[in-house]
């Protein structure tokens, strides 16, 4: 079963990559873009019986390894 996980910077944590992309978008003339935040998309395949178990497992390993809760938030995509 495939579970999709999104990891993002917590609000308030500076995202230098996003800021640099934002600056370049402005240089290209896309002045209407006022923020860019870059995160990670992770797909994991889990051998469990139910969707619920898979998501529970995904959250557990996100908290332990895939994300650093000090600086990042994570969620499982439905």
């Amino acid at each position, binding site marked *: 079963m495939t579970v999709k996980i999104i990891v993002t910077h917590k609000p308030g*944590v*500076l995202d*230098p990559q996003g800021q*640099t992309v934002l600056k370049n978008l402005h240089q290209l003339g896309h002045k209407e873009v006022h923020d860019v935040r870059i995160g990670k998309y992770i797909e994991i395949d889990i051998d469990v019986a139910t969707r619920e178990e898979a998501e529970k497992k995904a959250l557990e390993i996100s908290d332990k390894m895939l994300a*650093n809760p000090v600086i990042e938030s994570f969620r499982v995509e439905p």
Partner: protein
Amino acid sequence: MVFAVVTFPGSNCDRDCIWALESVLGYTVRKVFHRNGSLESTDAVVLPGGFSYGDYLRAGALARFSPIMEEVTAFAKDGGIVLGICNGFQILCEAGLLPGALVRNRSLKFVCREVRLHIENRSTVFTSGYKNEQEILLPIAHSDGQYIADDETLDLLEHEKRVVFRYRGPVRPDAPDGNPNGSARAIAGLMNEQGNVLGMMPHPERACESRFGRIDGMGVFASIAEAVANRKMIPA
């Protein structure tokens, strides 16, 4: 005095540490491989710099789950002295042995140069050997050295005098600003609550030989050796 230097896949300052500790400073070094090494009869542990696991996921995120880290954690909990340099600092933060996190330099650039450091606390097992020096110059070389933590944590670190090294003004008047990576409160090195685990981005092992220009880093290792010697004089 036995230092253990841990090698993770992708460590690249392990040899620098071994060279400085063994050949230059004359300590005994145990070369410990992350997968099957042991910290038996070790006085202090050094987690060296480099790019363990290619910095995949986040710097230090995967090394933190290496088999040796269970031993390092137990060693630290038991009061053992642990020094994390650069990637070693990142690993200690990821492992939760130090608070906060190290993220991409604010400039987004790899920064490789000498920095001026103020020794904020000289009553630690890592700095007691610096008798007169207020400031030292050490090299840095990293992409992910921006230290961040929430304000509450930063206040606590300051209050408990756990900020050990802080970036200070430029090395020369014409050199770039003192804080090379945008670290919160210009923190370059900090220790845990018990004072036996230190993480620092600058490389003391690269400043131990006068023929390379500086010996400012020697004091860190000499302080550790002195602390270990003092501990051994006290019967258990």
